[in-house]
Structures are given as C-alpha cells and as structure tokens.
C-alpha cells in the first residue's frame, strides 16, 4: 500500500483536505477523487496538454504533476471556469462562437491554456503558447481565430 499524504489545497475555489496516496497524479485526484471528469488524460506523457489545469493561474500538465506537489495551491479546472450564475468564461464563449470543438477531447486543456494566457499581463512569446497543446481535429485555425483578440492584445503588451 502506498504511503498517504495529507493534502490540503483549493480546487475551483473550494478547499479540500484529503489523504491521498503519494503515487496519485493530480489528473487522477481531480477525475477520480473529486469526480471532476472534465480534465482529460490523453497521451499520459505530457506531450499533448489535454490534461492542462491551472495551478496558481499557470498552465500545468496534470498528468505529470503529483497531487502532493499541489499542496497549498489554487487549482482551477475546466469546471471552475463557469461562474456561480452559470455564465461562461469569455474564452469558452469565443471558442463556442467560432465553432471550435470537433471531437472535443483536447478542448478542456486548450481552454485552460488560453485562460491562463488571458490572465498574464505581459508574457513573453504569448502567441506561441498555443503550440503547447495538440489538437488533431481542427488544424488550429479556428482556435486561433477565436483567440485572436487576446493574442493580439498580449503581443501588444496589454
């Protein structure tokens, strides 16, 4: 049996205190322990980014991050982007209106990646952030079109 770690962290604004196996990855803590199944694990190697969540507002590969490594952190998942009044985040709205999702498996991770981008005030190479995540269906153009306002803004340093 694996050692247990007393994990305290915040997920989508809610505090949790749970003993978790040290071997547990953050992706599985979210999906299995907290039943937040919006985060997907695709490649399980960190190549594709489908499992991207935010830790302290930065895009993080949850299949490569131990749950214990998120101790004391603020984790945001795709479920956390919907406001209390069920209003969508602007990034989701933009992707929706552009008709972005096809098979959709990459979308939660991609939404979180781009959400992180919008939270940065002036990140270097912001337009290049999109290369972090793989989509096999869309060819990225529809995503780029949807996110153009933010990427342009980031490149202008707003």
């Amino acid at each position, binding site marked *: *049996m*694996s050692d247990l770690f007393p994990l305290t962290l915040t997920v989508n604004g809610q505090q949790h205190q749970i003993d978790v196996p040290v*071997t547990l990855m953050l992706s599985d803590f979210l999906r299995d322990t907290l039943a937040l199944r919006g985060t997907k694990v695709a490649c*399980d190697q960190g190549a594709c980014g489908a499992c991207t969540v935010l830790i302290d507002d930065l895009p*993080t590969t949850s299949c490569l991050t*131990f749950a214990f*490594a998120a101790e004391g952190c603020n984790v945001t998942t795709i479920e956390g982007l919907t406001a209390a009044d069920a209003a969508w985040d602007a990034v989701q709205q933009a992707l929706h209106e552009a008709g972005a999702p096809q098979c959709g498996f990459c979308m939660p991770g991609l939404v979180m990646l781009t959400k992180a981008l919008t939270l940065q005030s002036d990140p270097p190479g912001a337009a290049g952030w999109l290369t972090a995540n793989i989509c096999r269906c869309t060819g990225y153009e529809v995503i780029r079109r949807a996110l153009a306002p933010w990427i342009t803004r980031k490149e202008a340093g707003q």
Partner: protein
Amino acid sequence: MLEFSGIAATRRRIAPFQLCRPDSLRQACESFAEAPGDTAVLAGGIDLANRLKAGYAPRRIVALNAVKELQDIRVLDDRIEIGAAVSHWQVENHEGLKGSLPCLPAYVSGLGNIRVRVQGTIGGNIMAAEPAYEMLPLLGVLGAKLNIFIMPERRWSMLSIPEFMGRSPAASLLASITIPRRCCDVVWDRQLRPSLGLVLSVEWCGDVIQSAIAALTGDRSGPVFASLETSGLGRADALASLSGIVSEWASRFPSIRPVNGPSADYCREVSGVMLRRAFHRILIAE
C-alpha cells in the same frame, strides 16, 4: 535506449515510494545520500513522472520544492547563480537576468513549450540527460559550472559542463548553476530541433575574439562542443576568412548520430552551414 517492455507506460502503474520533503539543502543531501542508487530527486517532475510511468521504481523520492536554497536567482558582479530548482518560467521572466545576461531568458523562452517551462526546472533539464534537451549546450558555451553533490564521495564539486558530461552517470544531486558574466554574443539555431541544434558563443575583447565555442545538439549521447582554435582574431579578419575558419572549426565536431531522424552525413554538412551563418550573424552585428 530501445526499450519496449510489453507493458504500457501509464501513471496508474507508478510503484509506491517513500516521499521525503526536506526543507533545507543539507537535509535533502542527507536523504539522498542514504540510498543514492535507490533515490530519485523530484524538482519539476516532468522527466521523473515519465520514468516512473515506464516502470522505474525508486524506493524513495526526495521532493525539492521546499528547499529554499534551490529556488534562488542571484545576479552578482562577476557571475550569475541559479538554483537548480528554478523553473524555466522564472528564468524567462526574471528582470535581473534580462538586464545582466539577456541571452539566457531569451533562449529559455523558446525552450519546449509553456507547460514545460512552467513546471520544468533548469536543473531538471540538465540532469535528465536527454539528447534533445537544450540547457546543457547553452550552459556549455557560456562556460557555466555545476555545483553538484556527488556520490559515493558525498562531497560537493564544481564541475564544468564537459566534466559533468564526462562522468559516468552516478547518482548526484545538482544544487546550483554558476554562469560567469563575460562580454559574449550568443546566438542559436533551432530550426531543425529536435534532430539538430546549434548554440554559439563568441567572447570579445573590444573587436577581437577572445574565444568562441559552439555546441551541437542531436547526438544520442548529448551535446558536443568545439572551440574556435584561433583566438586574437579580429572581426574583420574573421569575416574575410569565414569559410575556411568555419570549415576547420566544424571538422572538429564529433559525428552527430541522432536517435531517429537525419543521417550523420546530413548533420555534419548542415551543422557546418549553421555554424557559418551563426558566426556570420555575430560578426556583422554592432
């Protein structure tokens, strides 16, 4: 290297381990030294996680995220000191580095992708010993030294990059990287990564080349380095004899044998072209 165990690599497979979370470097070294052959070090965790998924089963994992000494970036008059557990993201955004050694944050900002840079550390990139990883070639041409706790001697050592690469991969714990501050121009060519990459540093004394060293990545055993033989070469002279200089220089690189990708012949030919172009860029810059 060509391992196929017949069993899928998956995070579900990670074998139980004892987790140590030291809050000082001394404690970290002690934990590590107790069983160095059976202990893994966790910084960012990218490479370790993938190794664990593939069946690597160390008895103990020492997590470094609470070790403050490993998280610092210090800009001093003659050198930069970077803790091994500093993330690429911290380096690319560090104002002090942008002012004192701008090639470093600029280079790091193009490494991997944003997820890798947020999670991965400078030290982890070095210690992973992956042929395509990009910190070793840059640090090598900058003349960096690694402050490293080596086993079984249980002592600290300052190793140059070639010295580090020359060691057999015995267990060790990297604490920090020291980069001398010199008057250098650094350029890189990443067009062909991960198959072939080039980093070039030219150190000047006025308009005279003190030294120049280039690193090529792509070989399965890691980056290879070669220095320009002629020092004391002036800018204009170097430009005038560029082809000859570069041809001789490039010939001293060992053969690049990629794991998967272009042939050694292609790498030899194109690395010469890359070197010539990179050197030319530096020579004609103001």
